[in-house]
C-alpha cells in the first residue's frame, strides 16, 4: 500500500505528506481513506452506493418482504403500493424482493468475473513484459484475437457448450471474463515494462531469484495500482454485461432473480401496461454500476492519475 497511498496526497501538502510517510501500517490505511473521503466527494458517494449494495446482498432475506421466486397468481401485475413497494410481475412475484435478491446475482457475477479476468490479465501482462521477445509477441497476438472477437459469440458458445440452468452461473462468469482479460493485460503490460528494466530487478536477479519469484514478488506489486483500479472499473462493466446477456436470454436463467432477466420478457411485453417491471431493475443496474464507476474513477485519481481506463 505504501507506494500507492503516497500518490493520493498532493505534492503541495508537504506537512501532511511527511506526517503520512512517518505513519505506518493500519494508521497509514486510515489516513488514506480519511484523505479520500475529504477530497473526493464523488468517490465517497460511489463507496456509499457500493456499501449499500453489499449490505442489501448480505441481508437480502431479512430485507425482502416476499420470497423472490414464489408465484402468486392472485397478485398478477399489481402496481406499486404499500403492500408491494415496486409492484408485481406477471407471475405475481414481488418486484422489490426480486430486486433485493438480484443484488446477490449481480455482485457474485460481477465480482468473480472481474477478479478472474483482471488476475489472468495481470499474469499475462507481467509475463509478457518480463520475458519480452517471442513470448511477449505470442501473448500480444492472442490478446488481439480476443479483443477483436465479438463477445456475443463467446457468450453464446459458452452457454451452449456448458449448458444453462439455475446452477450454471459459472458459465455466465466465464463468458464475461473473456473480454476483460486482454484489456487488463494491455494496461498491465505497459506499466510492467517500465518496471522490468529497473536496477533493483537486476539486483534481485543477481542475488539468484528465479523468474517466477521476480515476476510475482517484485514486478507484480508495482503494477498493483492499475490492477486495483481496473478491478473496480470492470466490476461495474461485468454487472452491465451480465444484465445484457441475461436480457438476451444467454445469461442467468429463470427463476434466479437477476436484474437483466427482469427486463427481458415481461419487462418488454408489459412495457405500457406495467412499466414498473422494466423501470425498477434498470434503476438497480444503473445505481450499482454508477457506484462502482464513481468509486473506481476517484480511486484512479488518487492512486495513478495518469492511467487511462476508458
Amino acid at each position, binding site marked *: 500500500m505504501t507506494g500507492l497511498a503516497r500518490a493520493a496526497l498532493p505534492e503541495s501538502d508537504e506537512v501532511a505528506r511527511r506526517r503520512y510517510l512517518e505513519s505506518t501500517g493500519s494508521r497509514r490505511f486510515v489516513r488514506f481513506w480519511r484523505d479520500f473521503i475529504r477530497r473526493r466527494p*464523488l468517490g465517497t458517494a460511489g463507496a456509499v452506493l457500493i456499501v449499500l449494495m453489499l449490505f442489501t446482498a448480505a441481508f437480502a432475506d431479512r430485507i425482502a418482504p416476499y420470497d423472490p421466486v414464489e408465484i402468486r397468481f392472485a397478485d398478477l401485475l399489481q402496481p406499486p403500493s404499500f403492500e408491494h413497494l415496486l409492484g408485481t410481475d406477471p407471475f405475481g412475484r414481488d418486484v422489490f424482493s426480486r430486486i433485493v435478491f438480484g443484488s446477490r446475482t449481480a455482485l457474485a457475477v460481477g465480482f468473480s468475473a472481474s477478479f478472474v479476468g483482471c488476475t489472468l490479465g495481470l499474469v499475462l501482462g507481467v509475463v509478457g513484459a518480463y520475458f519480452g521477445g517471442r513470448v511477449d509477441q505470442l501473448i500480444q*497476438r492472442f490478446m488481439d484475437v480476443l479483443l477483436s472477437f465479438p463477445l456475443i459469440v463467446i457468450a453464446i458458445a459458452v452457454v*451452449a457448450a456448458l449448458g444453462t440452468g439455475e446452477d450454471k452461473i459459472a458459465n455466465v462468469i466465464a463468458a464475461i471474463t473473456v473480454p476483460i482479460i486482454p484489456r487488463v493485460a494491455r494496461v498491465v503490460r505497459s506499466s510492467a515494462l517500465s518496471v522490468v528494466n529497473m536496477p533493483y530487478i537486476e539486483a534481485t536477479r543477481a542475488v539468484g531469484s528465479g523468474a517466477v519469484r521476480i515476476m510475482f514478488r517484485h514486478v507484480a506489486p508495482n503494477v498493483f495500482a492499475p490492477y486495483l483500479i481496473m478491478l473496480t472499473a470492470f466490476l461495474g462493466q461485468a454487472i452491465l454485461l451480465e444484465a*445484457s446477456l441475461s436480457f438476451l436470454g444467454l445469461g442467468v436463467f429463470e427463476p434466479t432473480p437477476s436484474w437483466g432477466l427482469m427486463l427481458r420478457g415481461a419487462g418488454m411485453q408489459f412495457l405500457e401496461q406495467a412499466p414498473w417491471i422494466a423501470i425498477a431493475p*434498470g434503476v438497480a*443496474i444503473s445505481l450499482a454500476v454508477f457506484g462502482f*464507476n464513481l468509486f473506481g474513477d476517484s480511486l484512479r485519481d488518487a492512486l495513478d492519475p495518469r492511467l*487511462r481506463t476508458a
Partner: protein
Amino acid sequence: MRRYVAGRLLLMVPTLIGVAILTFVIMRAVPGDIVALKYAGSPVPQSVIDEERHQLGLDKPMWQQFTDWMGEIARFDLGTSLWTGHSVVEEIEIRFPLSLELAIIATLLAIAIAIPLGVLAAVRQDTWTDYAIRIFSIGGLAMPSFWIGLLMVLTTITLFGWAPPFVFTPLTVDPFANLAQMILPALSVGYRYSAVSMRMTRSSVLEVLREDYVRTARAKGVRESLVVARHALRNALLPVITVISLEFAFLIGGLVVTEQVFNLNGVGKLLVDAVAHRDYTLIQALVLLLASVFVLINFVVDMVYVFLDPRIRYS
C-alpha cells in the same frame, strides 16, 4: 515508414487467422450441428441425416473442413449459408447498411455530445459544472443502453402515443421515415458511447492545458476561448479520435441488444440467429468480417496519427 506500414499490415494476418481458428474451434465444440437441430424431435431415419451432413460437407474430417474454408477465403468466396441456402454475401448485404447507418448516426451524436461537454468539464475542472458533466457521463456508462431504449419507447408512447414502427424503411426509400425510426436507437447507443469519449476529452484537455505553450499563449494575451479551441483542443483530440474510432468498430457488430429492443434486423441479430442455427459458414464469415473491420480501423487510426501529429514517427 513504408516498412512500418507493411509490418503492421502483415501483423493483421496472424490476428485474423487466430480469430478464424478460434471461431472454427468454438463453434464445433458447441454440441449439435445444423442438421441435428433441424430434425430435433422429428423421427427422421439416420440415413437422411447422414445424407444431409454429407451434402453440407459436415462429415469431412475437421482439419479438411478448416482447410477448405481457408481455401475459399483465399479466393474471396464466403460460401453459402447452411440455413437459408443464400450466399453469405447476400445475407450480410441485406443487414449491413442498417447496422452501418445506426453506427454512423450514433457516433455522430456521441461526438456532438462528448466534445463540447468534455472541453467544458476540463475548463471548469473541480467546479459544479465539472461534477454535473461527470455525473452525466458516468450515468451514460452505468445505464444499460437497451434500458435507455426501453425508457425512450415508453416515453414516446405515453407522451405522444407514438411507437417506433416495426417495419424497417430504408434511407433511400423514405429518408424521413428512416430517420424517425433510427433516432431513438441511435440516441440510446450514442449517449452511452458519448460518455467514454467525453471522459477521454476531459482528461486529454486537462493534460494539454498544463503544457508550456498554453501558458505562453495566455501570457501573450490570447483570448481564453481561442486558447482552448486552438491550442488545447486541437492537441487534445488525438486520443479522443482513437476512442471514437474504436467504438465505431465495436458499434457495427456490437448492437445486438439494442437491435433486439427496437426490433431492427441488423448484423447483430443476424449473428445471434446464425449461432442459434449453428450456421457455420455464416458465423465464420460474420466473425471474420467484424474482426477485420476492427483490426482495419485500428490500423487506420495509427496511420491517421502520423498525419495529425508530425512528431510521431514509426520505424
